[in-house]
């Protein structure tokens, strides 16, 4: 069966996450977004693990469902058109901070587990090493390679995925805290890594430019810190609905179970360009080179973003594809599209109302963004929104690129364009 999976999320027990980031709300928002399989996040955290044990029950092999007594009370919040079954997979992110080859490395890594026992083993091993009680995404002074070894020792079927591999400060290949190659990071165990997460600031096209990434399949997840951010990126599988099938789809070079990914436009990510957020300096990498990497306001080195970092490590021309390439669909979150169509912010009440209405009348967000016939959207949500989605699907969007922790901003319509579209409509 075909299903959408978002396997990097957090719980309310991670720092800087929403208070309502619990299983019930993940259950609701997964349906609104059109996600069938969602990560639990944070399974190493003892209190969260207790909640998982209490509220989830085994469903398909290696997957879990929210017990009926918890799900029922939430169902009213999900419009009929979005209702679907939701499964959970055990996932966690670890923040590794350590010194290697005389440089401080900060790398985030994901571990996905096939069973509660496997997850508990990981939890026990990490609990013996460091503090796992204070943060759902614990900080450990552990080498990424050693974390990988621990994960494999706990259960050989654990899946280990370097997270958002291009984020400057916290990733395997990041410009500030990372390595120049996956081999440098994972040494003798590199072969046990078979998937990497591209992160919001890069898309597959960028990743294909590195031959060293050829052995890895690219996955995409939201890294959501609140339920409504689920599915900003996701994976589309077409395979049996089970942990083993997912493992196989990622591990086996010939398996076609992973169909492709839904992506942010990479410019929208927080670290696409270079610059200094506080100095309001946003630079294309060429600009950075011109300025010798130093901020024109404060004189300190700018934060080098993902675009520049990819360019630095690339050994293929843009446009060429890697061996394990998959198609991908670039999307802008629906509230942002609606906001663009209305000329107001995505968090405004008007947008939220229109969003709800669309979910109720048309279906879940992924369906609206990627599959729903434009005519249908036009009929139910109006000409401008339909045009916005159409342009988004064609990639006709303008984005002021994100930089140094600041998200990029999407522009689908130029000033005055909205009225023109509405006026044209009035002519008929």
């Amino acid at each position: 069966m075909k299903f959408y999976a978002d396997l990097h999320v957090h719980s309310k027990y991670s720092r800087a996450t929403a208070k309502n980031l619990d299983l019930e709300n993940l259950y609701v928002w997964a349906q609104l977004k059109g996600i069938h399989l969602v990560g639990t996040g944070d399974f190493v955290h003892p209190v969260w693990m207790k909640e998982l044990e209490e509220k989830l029950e085994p469903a398909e092999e290696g997957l879990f469902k929210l017990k009926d007594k918890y799900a029922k009370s939430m169902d009213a919040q999900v419009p009929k058109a979005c209702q679907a079954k939701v499964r959970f997979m055990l996932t966690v992110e670890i923040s590794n901070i350590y010194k290697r080859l005389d440089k401080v490395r900060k790398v985030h890594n994901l571990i996905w587990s096939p069973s509660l026992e496997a997850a508990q083993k990981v939890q026990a091993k990490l609990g013996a090493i460091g503090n796992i009680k204070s943060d759902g995404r614990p900080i450990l002074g552990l080498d990424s390679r050693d974390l990988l070894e621990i994960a494999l020792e706990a259960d050989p079927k654990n899946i280990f995925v370097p997270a958002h591999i291009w984020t400057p400060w916290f990733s395997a290949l990041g410009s500030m805290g990372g390595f120049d190659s996956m081999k440098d990071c994972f040494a003798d165990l590199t072969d046990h890594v078979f998937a990497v997460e591209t992160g919001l600031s890069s898309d597959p096209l960028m990743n294909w430019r590195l031959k060293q990434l050829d052995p890895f399949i690219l996955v995409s997840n939201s890294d959501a810190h609140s339920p409504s951010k689920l599915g900003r990126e996701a994976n589309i599988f077409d395979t049996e609905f089970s942990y083993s099938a997912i493992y196989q789809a990622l591990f086996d070079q010939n398996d076609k179970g992973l169909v492709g990914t839904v992506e942010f436009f990479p410019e929208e990510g927080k670290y696409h360009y270079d610059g200094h957020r506080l100095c309001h300096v946003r630079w294309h990498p060429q600009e950075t080179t011109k300025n010798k990497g130093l901020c024109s306001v404060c004189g300190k080195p700018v934060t080098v973003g993902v675009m520049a970092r990819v360019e630095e490590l690339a050994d293929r021309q843009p446009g060429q594809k890697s061996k394990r390439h998959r198609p991908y669909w670039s999307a802008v979150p629906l509230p942002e599209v609606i906001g663009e169509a209305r000329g107001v912010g995505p968090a405004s009440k008007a947008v939220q109302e229109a969003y709800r209405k669309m979910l109720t009348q048309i279906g879940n967000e992924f369906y609206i963004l990627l599959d729903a016939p434009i005519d249908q959207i036009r009929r139910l949500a109006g000409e401008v929104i339909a045009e916005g989605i159409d342009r988004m699907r064609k990639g006709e969007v303008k984005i002021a690129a994100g930089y140094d922790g600041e998200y990029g901003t999407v522009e689908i319509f130029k000033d005055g364009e909205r009225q023109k579209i509405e006026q044209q409509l009035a002519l008929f």
Partner: protein
Amino acid sequence: MQTLSGLNDSQWKAVCHTGAHLLIVAGPGTGKTHTITRRIAHMIPSLKPNQKVLAITFTNKAAQEMQGRLLALGVPLNKALVGTFHAFCLKLLRDHWQETALPKDFKVAIPQDIQGFDKAVLERIGLMKSTRLVIEGDNEYKTYQRYLRKNNWIDFDDILREALALLENEDIAHQVRACYRHIFVDEYQDTNIIQNALLKILTQEGTLLTAIGDPNQSIYGFRGGNVALFGRFKDDFPGVRELTLQENYRSASNLLAASCQVMGGLELLAKLDAKGKLVTHEAASDAAEADYVTSQIEKMVGGMDMLSARGAYRSLGDIAILYRLNAERHVIGQALEHLGIPYQVSQKVPKPAGYSDEAVLGQFEEELDYNVEKVSLLTLHAAKGLEFPVVFIIGCEAKLLPLDIHAMKGDPQEERRLFYVGMTRAREHLYLTRARRRQLFGQTWFNPPSPFLADIEEDLKVYENSKPRRGPRKSEEAEKQQLKLF
């Protein structure tokens, strides 16, 4: 002369010296271990086939480290015996047990074995055993020794005393000297009188002693370490040549200058280009002090969220938090815990499963876990011999430095040296923090700053979140008191 490269002038002299005993006075960060291992390597070729070098270290960990370095310098393992005084003496007792008053299967008792004796009594006996060559007419001592022997035990201190007794046998002493023609002793400032007596016996018949240490880092007087032995070296080991290592390769220049000022104007030469940064911080309470320390760590490590990452370039293992008393650890530990910053407290090695000599010998040492990086929490004593890019010394307050709380009163000079040892652990960044109000032993203390802080020149200190003191301290304290009234 490949083995002599990588040495400065005074180190070179120390390595090449021959023909007499040698005392190397080596300040912190002056390449002590480097020099001593090079000197050992340099001497090996002059040894006859049946001769060896004996190298005595302060801890088992230091012994392992030295062995590694010697191996790297190409010294064959069978030419150098490296170990602590206790390890060496226990080996002597095992090798020559027939000549001792001990049974063949004697065991070294660990503290948990000893039953039915008061802690204070055991402490008094322990101190006596490490400070007196002869103990007479002490009934508690006699009872305790009888108790040990009845169980076929000797205790940790007895290892040295029994070895000393064994070496009174001239035949055995002769054998040992014939084997070990060169003896090296590290951390000489912390040797006690029993160890000194052992060395005097071992260095007859032409066996030469190289002692290395720093009287300014002597911090174990309370358990029998005797810094006076340093001054007496000439008398104990006649004909000695004395060399001083002054070039410091560890600490940034401001930190080194401040450390020297605390010791009343030592002369050490900073060899690093960096100035470093010495920050003093006064917090309202121990909790506020902990907040300050942890926020600084978050800034440096920046692991906690994306935005705090800016400019962060330290890893967890770069950082140590030092304190005078373990009791100070609680508040800072909780603050780190709360923020999810990994930390480790150095602790005694857990009781070994077996009673092997090796396990017994390691029992009193504190050990850090090096597989995983964490912020280190250490007493100033436990920090001896370690170094970190960033060091926080918390509780820089009167009553704590120098220690003078209830019955715990340190020797003021030794307390000063302890503070100096702490300061010289830092390579680049040293924080001296204090709290105006502190909970300790169920009591609230309002302590003024440690008097040691006043010995550091103002220009070297950066005050964070607290105004630099101008003018005499008293008037400003009074001013503050007045401000509080409003």
